[in-house]
């Protein structure tokens, strides 16, 4: 993959994510993690190669057939990308509204999830009035509200303390148990070691697979 006429940022990357698996994506800054995630959440098309998503060859799909696939993917962006003019509740409700859910169900589910991530008292607060950690939890809640088939998270624990970080990882695990495939891009070696899931390492645009750590320390 390349941006415009620039150099290739990803090359010879080939991998398969089995449904319901959990992966960490690591690599030095500039290794191509964000670019790989962008390809995976269908914000970019590869300059060459093949992406098969949920059994569909993305390149052969018509443009109008892509939105339903995108709705099966939840994304936690590195810089959250919350909408400043919307409340926490409306930010989290966005994917449900995009999917055409009824307003009554939207409010009920969103309020419940925000309470679960500890933001029950901040439903109507705007992102600007929330701390970095609170914004991150809103971003995560927004990504998981539709129970996506694939969850992609770019440094989801970057702005929260270890306790909240662990809690968020447990949320991802719960989602994974319900069948969601999880890919978390992170530099947090402590989390990778503790949870021990399979690791994909990007180095200079190339991908290396490391299997699930047998000696991982599982936190209950």
């Amino acid at each position, binding site marked *: 993959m390349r941006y415009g006429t620039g150099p290739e940022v990803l090359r010879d990357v080939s991998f398969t994510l089995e449904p319901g698996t959990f992966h960490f994506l690591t690599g030095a800054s500039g290794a191509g993690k964000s670019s790989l995630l962008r390809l995976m959440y269908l*914000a970019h*098309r590869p300059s060459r190669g093949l992406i098969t998503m949920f059994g569909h060859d993305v390149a052969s799909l018509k443009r109008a057939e892509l*939105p339903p696939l*995108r709705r099966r993917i939840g994304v936690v962006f590195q810089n959250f*990308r919350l909408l400043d*003019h919307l409340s926490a509740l409306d930010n989290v409700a966005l994917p449900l509204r995009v999917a055409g859910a009824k307003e009554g169900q939207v409010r009920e589910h969103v309020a419940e999830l925000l309470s679960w991530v500890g933001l029950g008292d901040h439903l109507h607060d705007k992102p600007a009035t929330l701390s970095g950690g609170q914004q991150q939890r809103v971003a995560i809640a927004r990504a998981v509200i539709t129970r996506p088939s694939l969850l992609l998270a770019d440094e989801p624990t970057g702005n929260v303390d270890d306790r909240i970080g662990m809690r968020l990882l447990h949320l991802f695990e719960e989602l994974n148990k319900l069948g969601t495939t999880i890919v978390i891009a992170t530099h947090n070696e402590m989390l990778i070691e503790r949870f021990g899931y399979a690791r994909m390492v990007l180095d200079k645009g190339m991908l290396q697979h490391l299997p699930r750590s047998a000696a991982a320390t599982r936190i209950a």
Partner: protein
Amino acid sequence: MFRTHYDLPLQRDVTGRFLPWIIALMVYLAILALAGSMVLSDMAQRWDKGLAGTLTIQVPPLPDGTPTLDARIQSALGVLHATPGISKAEPLKPEQMASLLEPWLGSGALSTDLPVPALIDVTMSGGRIDVRGLAQRLRAAVPGVEVDDHAAWLKDVLAIARAVEMVALGVVALVGSAAIATVIFVSRAGLAIHGPVVELLHVMGAPDRYIARQFQSHVLGLAVRGGLAGTLLAAATMFALTRAGGEFSAGLMPDMSLTPVQLLALAGVPLTAAVLAAVTSRLTVMRALARLP
């Protein structure tokens, strides 16, 4: 169609703030141009209907008064009644003459010694007759008589009326084009300002129509507000013009009253403007979104 909740903060856009004013101005101009066109069209039709197949004969009195005006009128009527194709030839009564001259000369003009010519209203039974031949026969029988063939100048007047009507419709078309261009500008500006939000919605799986609907609803709301303002302003202007026209002496100003159907058509202008604005916005946004992967 109206959403109570927008994912895109379009209401905050500065570019959208002037759209209602522009739409108001355009609806105002379009209504006045259309109303003017309707009045002209009605007037042209009335002239066409009222004057086609008619002639007016002017019989001026002679300076020495011999033969008398009445005798000259009778001579002219004799020629007219003997001409095939003329169904009616009647001299205007003094009270009809008085009402014709009143706007210019005031009441009582006929009681003075003004040498006012007599008029004979002639109706043809169908088709055209040889007006030139008739004029020659009339002049031979009644020297100094004038034959006013309305068809000749009616053709020119109708051509002018139609031209003015076309100009009015051209104004409506120009105003419509300017409104479309403004909506395209506002929609494109909105897309540029809210690019990151649009991209986020796109990545979340929002179909193009979901995003376009928000622009469309926003523009529709602005256009409805502007359209209402423009319509009220145009209604006030037309009312004032009608009142002003009524205060002039009868006959000098054209009849500016409109039929209920015409008023309904004018009421459709803001509606058309709103729908046009909404559709334009939707198409502009859909076209821009088609460039996203």
